[in-house]
């Protein structure tokens, strides 16, 4: 569902660009809002959420999909935890649909999907590993790296059950915005994948804007 935001960029308390292949790790307080802007189009922002009070509570794709009865995320979607509580709500979306089935790329899954000798290409889960290694203070460990959201990524599922990674439905300047419903840790890998159309074979920067309540 396309829903534009009423928030004004000039009033954001934080604005930054995250290059493809880099990560973002920060706390978003209850009531605060984060916007991810797909600056150049067809970029995947692989995202995980944790409760800032207890990071053993994390985003659950299963609970989110089941409770809304739909595979795709858009404005109006409540993002649920493994305890089935609402962590965040998507409040604006000019892309229209986001994936939470496809997971994040990893060097290991790249060997299966593309070629055993592609194991050393950069991948989202490696960005997350660096993030948690550089920031142990958040209490996130490898065991907490789980089934994520891919903002702007297009993974259609047919009624017959085929699942494919398709060229993006996003475009330059499209954005998605979500408001925290509890204090959360946001962990984003701006996807470096070069082997499939999730980034249009051309990984590009994203912009992050934060508004406080």
């Amino acid at each position, binding site marked *: 569902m396309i829903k534009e935001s009423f928030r004004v960029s000039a009033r954001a308390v934080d604005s930054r660009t995250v290059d493809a292949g880099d990560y973002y790790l920060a706390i978003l307080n209850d009531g605060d809002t984060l916007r991810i802007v797909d600056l150049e189009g067809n970029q995947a922002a692989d995202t995980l959420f944790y409760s800032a009070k207890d990071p053993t509570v994390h985003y659950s794709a299963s609970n989110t999909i089941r409770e809304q009865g739909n595979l795709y995320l858009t404005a109006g979607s409540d993002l649920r935890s493994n305890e089935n509580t609402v962590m965040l709500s998507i409040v604006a979306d000019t892309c229209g649909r986001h994936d939470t089935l496809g997971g994040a790329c*990893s060097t*290991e899954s790249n060997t*299966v999907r593309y070629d055993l000798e592609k194991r050393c290409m950069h991948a989202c889960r490696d960005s997350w590993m660096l993030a948690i290694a550089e920031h142990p203070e958040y209490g996130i460990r490898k065991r907490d790296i789980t089934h994520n959201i891919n903002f702007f990524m297009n993974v259609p*599922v047919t009624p017959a059950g085929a699942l494919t990674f398709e060229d993006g439905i996003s475009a330059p300047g499209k954005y998605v915005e979500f408001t925290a419903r509890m204090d959360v840790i946001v962990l984003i890998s701006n996807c470096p994948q070069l082997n499939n159309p999730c980034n249009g074979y051309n990984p590009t920067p994203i912009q992050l804007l934060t508004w406080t309540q």
Partner: protein
Amino acid sequence: MTKTLSRAHYKTTLSAGSHWSFKLRRGLSLQLTDETGGANVGMVLYNADNLLERYNAPDTLKCQHTFHLTQGHCLYSDMGHVLASVIEDSVGAHETICGNSTRDGVRESMGERSYQQDRNSWHQNGYDAFLVELAKYGLERRDLPANINWFSACAIKEEGDIALSEGPSPAGSQVRLRMDMDCIVVLHTCPHPMSKRGEYPDSQVRITLTDAPPVNDDDVCANHCEENRRGFENNRLYYLGSA
């Protein structure tokens, strides 16, 4: 569809609402039989030698370009290994996205979970069942990945709406896994979280452990797609030098 099994090493039957976990070595086969029809078996798998490596639903689905699981599909870990593979299946589709029933969900749709009142007929839920088994290995809720729900399938509409398929698993339905790594298998027989039946199921699931056929040239899983050939090659590297 179902070939003659080699001699069973072990057989048991689990009533609805049960949970169990065990180490199963590679080369063995785990067959699930829905004796009554309409059963649900929640399952997650961990590499027995490294519990940080566990079943990964997204990697499993995307590398085989499928939303459903059935014969020919491999169950991948987050480290690019084939934990187990579906060598036989009479059902045709099983789902791995919808998660588990919860205490609140079961209470609302099927009535209170009360051991005091109902003893062995209590209304156990899938999430609590997994938490109990995981704790036995030092694992917690943070360690629970998206699980498989054997004998349950989703119907998908064009716009992504999903619903639980009605009656995909008649009595006698079977799915047979080959263990491709030494795994901790954690399973429960609690109802599917989207079940609309309104009463707690009375299903019986038989578990049969036998020897599994090796991954030969004509293997239904290795030949399913190029990705699976590479998955089994990763397994070969993992076990290089071991018996």
